[in-house]
């Protein structure tokens, strides 16, 4: 039993260490978005996190700024901005994709800033 578990733990350890972020090579960028509510936050964070080269994305709803930690070898700021606009939100001065924006639930579309913070 012991040998087996050690082997498996080692295997898992390998999986972990290859997928875990490598802090030395990591870059960070802050992008202002047009997020409205918790649902928007989840949508943007999820799409960014699941994009190639992104280690972490955290959106602060108070200032609508998303902080992205990424691997510059795998992606760049322009691609990250494109992920946000394709999700239906503005990324700094870049305007969102209109089709993606129109698909959002009405409460998450621009001009609904009062929503969400109950």
């Amino acid at each position: 039993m012991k040998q087996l578990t050690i082997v498996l733990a080692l295997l898992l350890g390998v999986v972990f260490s290859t997928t875990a972020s490598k802090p030395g090579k990591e870059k960070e960028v802050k992008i202002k978005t047009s997020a409205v509510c918790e649902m928007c936050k989840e949508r943007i964070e999820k799409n960014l996190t699941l994009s190639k080269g992104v280690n972490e994305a955290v959106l602060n709803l108070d200032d609508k700024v998303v902080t992205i930690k990424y691997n510059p070898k795998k992606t760049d700021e322009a691609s990250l901005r494109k992920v946000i606009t394709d999700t239906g939100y503005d990324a700094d001065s870049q305007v969102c994709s209109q089709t993606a924006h129109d698909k959002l639930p009405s409460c998450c579309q621009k001009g609904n800033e009062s929503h969400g913070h109950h």
Partner: protein
Amino acid sequence: MLTQIEQMKLPSLNIYLILLSCLLGGRLQAQRVTGTIYERNETGKKSALVGVNVFWGGTSLGTITDSLGKFDIARSAKTNRLIISYIGYKTDTIKISAESNFDIIMKPEGQLGEVVVRGTSSQIDRLNPIQTEIITTKALAKAACCNLSESFETNASVSVSYSDAVTGAKQIQFLGLGGQYVQTNVENVPTIRGLASTFGMNYIPGTWIQSIDIAKGAGSVVNGYESLTGAINVELIKPDAREKTYFNTYVNNFGRGELNLNLNRKLSDKWAVGFLTHASTLQNRVDNNGDGFMDLPLYTQFNGINRWQYKSDKMMAQFGVKALHENRLGGQMAFRENMRGTSQAYGFGNVTNRVEFFSKTAKLYQDKPYKGLGLILNASQHNTNSYFGFANYDGNQRTLYGNLIYQSIISNTNHQFKTGFNYLLDDYRETYKDSLMTRMESVPGAFFEYTYNYLDKFTVVAGLRADYHNLFGAFVTPRLHARWQPLEHTVVRVSAGRGQRTPNALAENYGYLVSGRAVRFWGGPLQPEVSWNYGLSITQTFHWFEKHWDLILDYYRTDFQNQLVADTDHADALASHLYFYNLRGKSYSNSFQVELNTLLSKRTEVKVAYRLFDVWQTMGQPANDVRLAQRMMIPRERVLFNIGYTLPYDKWKADLTVQWNGKARINDPMKSLQATIERKSMPILYSQSFVNVNAQVSRAFKKFEVYLGGENLGNFKQPNPIIHSEDPFNKYFDAGQTWGPVIGRTIYAGIRIKVKD
């Protein structure tokens, strides 16, 4: 990256800690989070809520709001999820990213049901006076979770094993006893019971499940009297779920394939409709242990639910239909369905059809969120036809269930109560070989349950119900639960209560029917099973090595006043026996469990648990060999270790579970025969202990998720799971002595596609 743990190099640290220490991040700084909690009254004005629970998810670090509705809580190193809960209001979870001050307006609950806090993958419901573990979708995704029977893999309290080596039926072990003593509810309606207890665990696909609550001990009186050791409640995906479409497909190395599709649509502000569907099959004959028998039965299952839901400010209603068809075929590799009833090859077959109508209606009181009136109505028809070699077993069960519940408060929300009536009608018709058994049970009942809550520090739930059973007369079911939080990090729970149920000897001991045993009901008609259950549990949280730990200790005892004894100990020159009879003498179960949980880092969860079952039964009267013997097939000890690693939004997820199962008492008809010939007492035999290892890795993409996993990776197989497999028409043939895995290593892969709003 060296961490403090590694630098200390304590000998007590195990290999996992050291291996994973490379992942541990830096410490969070101590900060405080403050805020005010309000409700909005009829005129739309905000007013402060006093006594609201504010705590960090998965911990017992918490506080309550003061007379101005304000709270002030130290930041937790373990989580950023702050949970706001108040009875009668919707529980709110807030992700705290930076130090801040919050104004929160709580919304009334809007439906009947206890306040349940959900968050991390599995946790103890902190505030529930009944010791309750919650398995969320996050924990369910840790394993392939094809169905309910596979959903407890990472849970220490519930274990599931095959009941025999042929049929694929599965049995729960809980507090040292079988699944029939746990009330298994789907959305608070008793569901896996009666004839459905044989394969019922396979009838709830994992993709339909939203969460599972496991309550230990006597339980609430609201849903009936049948929970002897506890209650498992499964909540299914609701029609108004945010996931509009969920598609899942699964395949494993033995050729089992599975398709699941959930569709949920909001039709208007008030109406929503949901479809949960499932189809799965195995058509590949597998015999890896070379005993000539299929290790798994071939099967096909079609299963579906259609549910309609209506929600307005004043009422909530839902109704729908469930339907299931399943076909199983097992036995010797050469067996074909047309050989049924011949001695060409030994075969097993089962066809089950089940239909169920369900409805729930609740009247709500907008300005009084603590008040509600609910009505549950269910009707089901369960039909099952089986054969084991030459023996046929057919069963039909029709059930009606109604429950009317009124809940309100006495002067303030510190005193709540639920009261109501229910009615249960069970109509059974079973034939086994040449004997016909029919039973009609009609049981009206009434209940009252009072809950006293003092600032969430001390809670008592006292319940009483009275039922009149048409066959067994009137009986009273008292139950008491108390929860006390003497210190901030310590919760103590005690419980005591009575339970009663009518046993279904054949359906609950189905695995023993795959044998040459002669079935006999001995010593008069079967009486209802009656037990008292007593429990004590302590939940302690503490800081150690800069980490947050939860330690849960619990002890439960179940004492039977009457029990159905299924006795397989005896064999003589004429036959090997399966006796069913009423308990005469002592029967009890002691269950002790210790569980330790921690978050090693923000992304790594670890659980270690040890469980001891000490279960004894007085048996042997039919052969005049009376003694107190260990309950069959229950491993005395079990150790569970689980480690899970998750990146944000499940980009990568890896999970490993190792279980060690101790020895269980088993039986061998040949040894019994020998003892009979030598005029000795029946032999006491034990199985081996074994280790089971499961692991899974999954990766999420924007639109879908893929997973790859393995079960029984150590490839342990029970040697000779079938006694006399070479001669299955022998009277000492027995496939019901299964204590370990019959099939070896299983590798599976699948994909999940979810479309959200």
